[in-house]
């Protein structure tokens, strides 16, 4: 293929460039995803973290080109293995989804069809892509279920006969049925208990390792992302404000928002004051001038309120969108707070 040269050059399986997704509202477009760019190497685990309304799920659906009205992909490209998903014909797109890029949707438990046996749902997905005899299909289903740690006998069950964790793993079996190159997992464990969550995430990790697939894990739990991802991207109001290797992101975050996010998570080593992030994210139809985090940022200065910071490299493989850089190398100590602690 012609794209091989390009792929070798970038060494990436997924390259998202300047992706913009808007929702049309009566008060103008809500920029849910705004100028987002990142790339993913095969086998890489990218965790995208953000609060509700930061554009995480919009981004996940846009990567699959599943955006629906009033949402609109208004610009950018999503290059999967050298081909732009956003420019594919519908036929090409259908063939690409699941085979090359698969989604584990948010609340996968409710994404299963309640009136179909699990087996038939898995076969349905596979049959849309490959021709196989019924026996081969059944064998394949058993193999897929075993791979996600389920007893092949559950194939004959209906979704309501499965627990939350089992349904989540079933959804994972479907998503990985054609060995995709990229798996997009949108809060795959948000409704599960911690023990089940750990088991599901470890299963996802093993699957991904076995397939050599890249994973985009979307979530709001920094702890979970830290346990799973090797690269972390932080989203705020539709933008990636910082992205870098997980170790640096947790131990030496550069963006004030990342720092506050990390600090807002209490550990179990010692009791300390709980620190939230004062204020609320901006409304996407009514973004502040300059940096969208500036109204909540303890470091904000004049330039932040005028000029939108762009992602700039800081440290190895780390990029940050903040005017504190490049003047600083690391995040300086927090200035004396003038912020009203409880401002709603």
């Amino acid at each position, binding site marked *: 293929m012609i794209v091989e040269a390009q792929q070798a050059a970038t060494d990436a399986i997924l390259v998202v460039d300047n992706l913009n997704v808007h929702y049309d509202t009566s008060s103008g477009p809500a920029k849910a995803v705004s100028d987002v760019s990142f790339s993913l190497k095969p086998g890489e685990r990218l965790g995208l973290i953000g609060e509700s309304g930061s554009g995480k799920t919009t981004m996940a659906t846009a990567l699959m080109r599943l955006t629906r009205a009033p949402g609109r992909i208004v610009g950018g490209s999503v290059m999967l293995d050298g081909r732009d998903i956003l420019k594919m014909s519908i036929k090409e797109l259908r063939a690409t989804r699941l085979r090359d890029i698969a989604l584990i949707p948010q609340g996968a438990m409710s994404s299963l069809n309640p009136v179909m046996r699990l087996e038939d749902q898995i076969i349905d997905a596979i049959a849309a892509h490959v021709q196989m005899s019924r026996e081969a299909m059944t064998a394949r289903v058993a193999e897929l279920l075993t791979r996600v740690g389920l007893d092949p006998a559950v194939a004959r069950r209906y979704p309501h006969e499965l627990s939350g964790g089992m349904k989540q793993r079933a959804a994972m079996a479907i998503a990985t049925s054609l060995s995709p190159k990229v798996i997009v997992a949108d809060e795959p464990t948000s409704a599960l208990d911690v023990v089940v969550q750990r088991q599901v995430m470890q299963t996802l990790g093993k699957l991904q390792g076995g397939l050599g697939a890249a994973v985009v894990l979307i979530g709001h739990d920094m702890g979970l992302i830290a346990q799973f991802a090797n690269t972390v991207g932080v989203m705020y109001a539709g933008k990636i404000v910082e992205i870098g290797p997980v170790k640096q992101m947790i131990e030496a975050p550069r963006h004030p928002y990342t720092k506050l996010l990390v600090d807002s998570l*209490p550990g179990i080593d010692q009791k300390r004051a709980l620190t939230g992030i004062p204020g609320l994210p901006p409304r996407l139809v009514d973004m502040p001038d300059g940096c969208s985090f500036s109204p909540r940022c303890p470091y904000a200065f004049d330039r932040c309120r005028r000029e939108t910071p762009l992602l700039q490299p800081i440290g190895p493989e780390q990029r940050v969108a903040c005017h504190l850089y490049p003047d600083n190398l690391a995040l300086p100590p927090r200035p004396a707070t003038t912020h009203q602690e409880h401002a709603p």
Partner: protein
Amino acid sequence: MSALIELQRAAKTYGAFTALDDITLSLSEDAPSMTAVAGESGCGKTTLARIMLGFIDPSRGKVLYRGQNVATMSGAERRQFRREVQPVFQDPFDVFNPFYRIDHVLTTPVRRYGLAHSDAEARKLIEEALSRVGLRPQDTLGRFPHELSGGQRQRVMVARAVLLRPKLIIADEPVSMVDASLRATILDELKTLNRDLDISIVYITHDLTTAFQICDSIVILYRGAVAEAGSVERVIGDPKHPYSQLLVSSIPLPDLSKPWGGEEIRNAEPSGPTRGAGCKFAERCPHVMEMCWTSPPAEYTTESDRLATCFLYRDAPALKDKNISSVFRPPDTKPRLASEAAGNTNPHPERY
């Protein structure tokens, strides 16, 4: 010590299903405490909350509020009980009627309990309650629920509870639907209510990290029964019951030096009814022994401030009166919080 609320061998069964099994505990009225109740879905956390709130009556045993049996209270007593024991629920979206302004959930209790003699006085009470939970009254009153964020709505619910000057707040997963950045603030407010207004708080959660941070004591429930209980430092810092150990080791910590255990989890979820009369955790327990299948373990007090319902600790003295609060840490001995000291972080972690 006089008890504010007391559960005496309370149990709740639905047909053959036991939602809550023989719980005895008492919370002191003199020393307002913060107690966490934790465990996985279906462990009986919410059943316990609903029994304490008097929403449902226990199938066996009883609940006493200041010595009065909640199930047999007179109308006036029940009104008083309803006022003094306030709930905060999980879902900050469901509890509001979308057609009423926020004011509605605040003026209703003021009116029903005759808390104010005039509209001006009512307004003052409401504003005070809102300010106490960190909301600006002028930005909150007059708005509709959809105009507030989840975190703000949850704070309105806390304000509503505070308005009634309760003695006990039962918060059932109050922050599980709120963003991480706002959780800390809401929990900190609960802590402040406990400290400043002497309100006892029962914090029902599946999140052990926040339980550790704000509570004095914790009860870990497994399939309706107490698996482990005691001070949070003991139970979460160094869990003894194999189920608590599994829970604690599964917390995804944002700390790369503490990775999840790599070992396989055998049976992450309970499956089917428990077998026989033994320990309910036996089928999932990595340390299961012969005796675990035949009789239930007693509450072994491994330390003065911890009990574990597990035969691994059968050499420790068993709790005599079943009252698990005897291992709760009295709140008056609570270590000073770092927030009360000057800085935000405590350079000298407490050792126990």
